[in-house]
Structures are given as C-alpha cells and as structure tokens.
C-alpha cells in the first residue's frame, strides 16, 4: 500500500495509516451492508419503503441509529460476571479486525502479506466463538446461556466444512498466500482454456457453495440464526446487552459478513482482479499500478454481490432446528467437501 505513495513515511505514520485503513475496511462495508441490504433491500422484499426520513432515501438513518445507541444507558445485570461481560463484544469485533488484515485489495494494497493467509484467516475467525460464549455465560441469563451454547456448537460444527471447502482452492492454487491465490485465479488457465483466467467459482463450484453455506452459519444469519433466534431465545447471547455494547455486537455481525464475503471473493471470484480483463500480466511485478486504485473498488463490488446472496437467503428462509443444523453439517456438508477435495486432487494431478 505504501509503495503507492512513493514517499518515505515514518513508522508511526505507517501504523496510523494501517489503523485508519483497517477501520475503513471494516466499517465502510458494514455500513453499506446495513443500509443497502438490511434497511432497503429487506424493505423492498417486504413491500415497504424502509427508512426514508433521515437524509436522502434514509441514507443517514444509520448515523442516527448509532447516535441513539451511544446515548443509551449501559445496563449491566447485577449478577453478571462484569469483566467478562464487558470484554465479550470487544472480542467479537476484534476477530473481524484480525480477519480483514489478510485480505488483499490490490497488487500493493494489503495490510500484511502472510505466506499462510488462508490458515490465519480460518484460525482468527473462530475467536468470535469465544466472545459469543463469554457473552452467553457472563450475562447470567438463561436465554443468553442457551444462545451462547448453541452458538458454540454451531460455529464449531461449521468451521470444519469451511476449512475443507477452502482446501480445494489451496490445492488448486498450490499456495496458502491470498495474494498468490488471487494471482493464480487471474493469470492461469482453466483446463487449457485461456480466455477468462481461472476464477475458482467455476472449477471449485462445490467448494464455493459449501463455503457460502458455512459462512452463513458462521455469521449466524438465517436459516442458521438459532444463537439469536428472536422468537425463541429473545435475542440469544445479546439479550442483556444495551447501548454501545449492543452496537459493537451489531457492527461485528455485519462487518464480519462483509469481511467473510471479501475473503470468499478473494478465494473464489478472483479477488481484486477481473479474470477476463487481466491484460496478460505474467508476474506480480508486471501488474500495473492503477490496480491499487481499482482493486479495492472491485473487491467491494464482489463483496456486495456475495453479501446480497447472504442477505437474500437470510430474509427468505425460516430457521433450522439445532439438531437439524448439526445433522446438515456432519452428514451433508462435510462428506460433500471431502469428495470435492478428492476430486480436486485427482484433477490437479491429471492436468
């Protein structure tokens, strides 16, 4: 990111820019998703207008909502385990910030260039389980406890298909570095056909579907929203949270949706490149500098397409039951993704 500016920046300046960049990369998608999908798309699906008063077409509604939450009293239950209760939302949001660090936005626009980026992303994404479990336990509320336990069971069950779905991509690209995976999708060919590069959504379609289902469950969006399940558990692990602590949970929910969609677009849709407009660049150093500007826009566009899918499913489907969810993970998703890995390995050797 900093070669772009072509000036020497002191270390503290770099750190500051990184923090600002991280905040923008997490909060901007979250706000966009909440406004576009939660407020507007959901309203149009349900034959209503959604927020219309605050700003043009209600676009400042989110600002008003954040202001409202910040004003609210910070209520803590008397018998709650206070330090854990206070820490839980921060742990949840922290995993989102740790996750966005590995997403590449352009040839030079990245926060860190991990060799094992995929591994790291899958590892830190499960930190949020800890936060949810902490929230569920420390709230001293039976609904919260049930929600927290449900979340723990669910998130652990869906980690596995997610990892296995990504394995296919890793095998095909031959690397765990997300930057290299983007490059491999854009610059390589698909079964000898060179026209559109090799976006893994085409060759790894099974993996893509499993990954999308798994992140739907990881994000606890309907039909996998039993940890929150407002008609059963009131609000699950978030029941006792109010004011800015609830706001942090809320931001965490949608920011994680955005970041997971970014990772999915990096793994399956060609990341910051457009596979059929790659201009024949053969190595990372060839890639033109303007991709650093176009890259983030392309990533955000792809992220919006994927979050649209996530939200569409969320607003349409009823909720699974807890045991049905576990059965679906262990009996359907995991065998399918294992078969996908085997097929990928065989085809990788064959071609």
């Amino acid at each position, binding site marked *: 990111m900093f070669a772009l500016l072509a000036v020497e920046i002191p270390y503290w300046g770099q750190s500051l820019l990184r923090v600002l960049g991280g905040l923008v990369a997490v909060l901007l998608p979250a706000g966009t998703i909440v406004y576009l999908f939660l407020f507007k798309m959901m309203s149009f699906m349900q034959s209503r207008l959604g927020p219309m008063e605050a700003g043009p077409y209600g676009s400042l509604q989110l600002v008003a909502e954040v202001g409202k939450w910040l004003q609210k009293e910070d209520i803590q239950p008397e018998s709650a385990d206070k330090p854990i209760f206070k820490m839980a939302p921060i742990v949840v949001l922290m995993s989102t910030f740790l996750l966005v660090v590995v997403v590449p936005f352009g040839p030079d626009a990245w926060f860190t260039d991990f060799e094992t980026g995929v591994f790291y992303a899958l590892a830190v994404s499960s930190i949020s389980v800890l936060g949810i479990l902490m929230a569920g336990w420390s709230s001293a509320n039976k609904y919260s406890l049930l929600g927290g336990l449900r979340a723990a069971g669910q998130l652990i069950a869906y980690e596995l298909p997610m990892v296995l779905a990504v394995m296919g991509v890793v095998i095909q690209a031959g690397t765990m570095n997300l930057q290299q995976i983007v490059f491999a999708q854009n610059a390589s060919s698909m079964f000898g056909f060179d026209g559109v590069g090799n976006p893994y959504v085409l060759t790894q379609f099974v993996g893509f579907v499993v990954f999308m289902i798994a992140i739907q469950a990881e994000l606890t969006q*309907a039909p996998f929203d039993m940890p929150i399940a407002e008609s059963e558990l009131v609000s699950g692990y978030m029941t006792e949270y109010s004011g800015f602590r609830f706001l942090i949970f809320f931001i965490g929910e949608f920011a994680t949706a955005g970041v997971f969609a970014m990772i999915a677009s990096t793994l399956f849709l060609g990341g910051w490149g457009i596979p059929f407009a790659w201009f024949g660049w053969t190595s990372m150093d060839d890639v033109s500098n303007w991709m650093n500007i176009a890259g983030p826009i392309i990533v955000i566009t792809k992220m919006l397409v994927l979050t649209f899918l996530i939200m569409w499913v969320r607003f349409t489907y009823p909720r699974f039951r*807890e045991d049905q969810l576990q059965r679906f993970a262990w009996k359907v998703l995991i065998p399918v993704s294992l078969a996908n890995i085997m097929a990928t390995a065989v085809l990788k050797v064959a071609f």
Partner: protein
Amino acid sequence: MTILNDPVSAKLGNRQQLSYIASQAADARLNVELETEGMTLNIGPQHPATHGTLRIIARLDGEQVVWAEPSCGYMHRGYEKLTEVRTFPQVTTLVNRIDWLGSFANEVPFILAAEKLMGVEAPPRAQWIRTILFELSRIANVSLFLGDLGVQLGAITPVFLAFRDREYVLNLIESATGGRFHPNFDRIGGLKDDLPAGWIDETKVVMKKLRNFCDEIETLLFGNEIFQSRTRGIGVIPRDVALQYGLSGANLRASGVDWDLRRDQDIALAYNKVDFKVWTHPDGDSFARCWIRLQETREATLIVDKLLDGIPSGPVMAKVPKIIKVPEGEAWVSTENPLGEMGYYVVSRGDLGPFRVKIRSASFNNISITPWLLRGVYVPDIITILASLYFILGDIDR
C-alpha cells in the same frame, strides 16, 4: 421418594404422572453420571413468541423439555362478571375484545343467544351480511396467523405480506361497519346498517387478492423444505387425544375429526345456503394444523364470493322494542370462530342485562393440551407447537 412427593407431579393425571416420574428419574440419572442439573425456563409472560402475556414454565434438560405447563391469567379482564352490569346491547362492546383479531365473530354468538331468548330472528339480508362479515373476520384473523407463523419459525418476510393483505380486509370491514378492529355492528334483531354502495364489487376484488396471498404463502412458506422439516411430525395430536382435550376448530380438523359448526348445526346464519368444503388432515402434526388454516382461508374467500352472489334484498333489522328486555330463560349458542368453537351460555332473569354469561372461548381449551404436547420436545419446537396451536391471548384470559 422425593419425586413422588413432588408438588408438580401431584397435580398431573395418572398417565402424565408416570411419564413425569420417568423423566425425573432420567434427569436424576443424568445428574449422577454427568453431575448436570436441569434448568427451569420461564417462557413469558414477556416473550416475543407468546404475542401477549402467556407464560410457559418449562423444565429443560439441555434443550429438551422434560415438563412444561402454561400459566395463564396475566391479562384476565373479567368479562363474564362485567357483562352482569351491562345491558344486552352494551355487551357486544365488551366481547369484541375477546379475540381481537376477528372481533365481529365474537359478537355473533352472543347476539344469536339473545335473539334465541327473545324469540326474534334477524331478516334474511341481515343474516347473509352477518355471515359475510363473520367470514371476513376469519380471513383477517387467519391471514395474520399465516404470516406470523413465518416469524415464529424465523422467516421475517411473510408477516409483512400478511399485514399488507389483511389491510384490504380491514378496510372492507371498516367501510361496512365503521370500526377496523372492533366493529360493534351486530344488534339484537339485525344489524346497525345496510352495506354501503359499491361494497360488493370491492369485496370480490379483495377476495381475489386474498386468494393470491394464500398462493404466495403456500409457495413461500409451506413449500419450503426447512419449514416442512420444522413442522412435519412435530407436536402430533392423535384423534382421540384431541377429542379428550376438547380441542376445536382447525386444531381438531387437523387431527382427522370432520367437525365444523358452520356445517353441522342449524343456526340463523347463511352457511346452509352455500356449499363449501370442510378441510381435514389425517396427520395431526403442526404442519397439518397450519395447512388446514391455509386451506380454510382460501375456502372462506370462496364462501364470501358465493354469499355475495346470492345476497337477498330486504330490511336489515327486525322489529324489536327500543329498550330491550330479554325474557327469563337460558340459552346456549356456539359458532365456528376463527380460533375454534366459541359459545355463550346466557342466563336472563328478565332484566335489561344478562344475569350470568359463561363464555366458552376456543383458545383456552386449545392451549390446555400443551402440557401433554410439550413433553420431550426441543425448545424451538415449543415455539412451533404454540404457533401452530394458534391462540390469541384475549381469547385465553377473558
């Protein structure tokens, strides 16, 4: 022997006591092996799924319900007592509030009982309009159920479709009676007014919209695999148990009992003038109950269409005195309301008001089966079962 002396098990019947003891024993065994203990979960009185103030006390083992009991009375308004200090025409205002989603249907059986005591009968046109409004309130009531069902199961979109299309029906009721929720339109001996001009054509258009809404719900919700897996085989009520607990309405018909008061009794309503199908389902599970209600909403729109075609002309009010004094006697009239059988036992001593009124409302009997039904299910199934039994709080706590 603490289990046998348990105050909870002492209150239950023989068969339930046995199963309760068995579940307690299983609980105790679990406690010894894993050092776990059960948890008592209070669902309600303030809870999103009880749409009102019903309280379910559930003893849980993990997420499995060991024992559950509904506790009602948080919204008791004492209507039976209040009717004793009202005159006969004033009572309809009260009973409107019993099942607040289908208000007009609450007035009809009371007015019919009073008419029976007085020996007057409403003119044919009034009877037909009563029947039409009765079915409209059924549509308004059950269409909201169909949307709310989605919310209970986690799908948020259907409820907005239901609110959108219920609005058309409420507008019809409002233009005919003047009240959206609480029409208070029925009078002893007929109706307050005739229908406004153009109402019949408008109603036919709305009925077509409501049939479209039923199709929409059927494809959006009933055809969904997740919905089916959540409701099929959950909360099965066998035929004999349904009869034992005095269930009525769609809950009874979903257990395979072909029983509908609209068809089976001869009262001063126009149901015997039109043909309609009474839907039954052999399964008795939650899906069957929801499916029956969907079919009945569609059938109700057809009934309204047929009634509108054959509506007779004439007055809407019979000759009754200005000050109504009901002669001494007792009368029982019940009708097939949106929620099930609703009846009034009216005792008159020849005064301006009733001496005593006993209200039999459907929901109170329908939820009495929940302790039997909720044993051994999971927490999400509590919500499914309660949603499919379909109660209105005002109908439980009168």
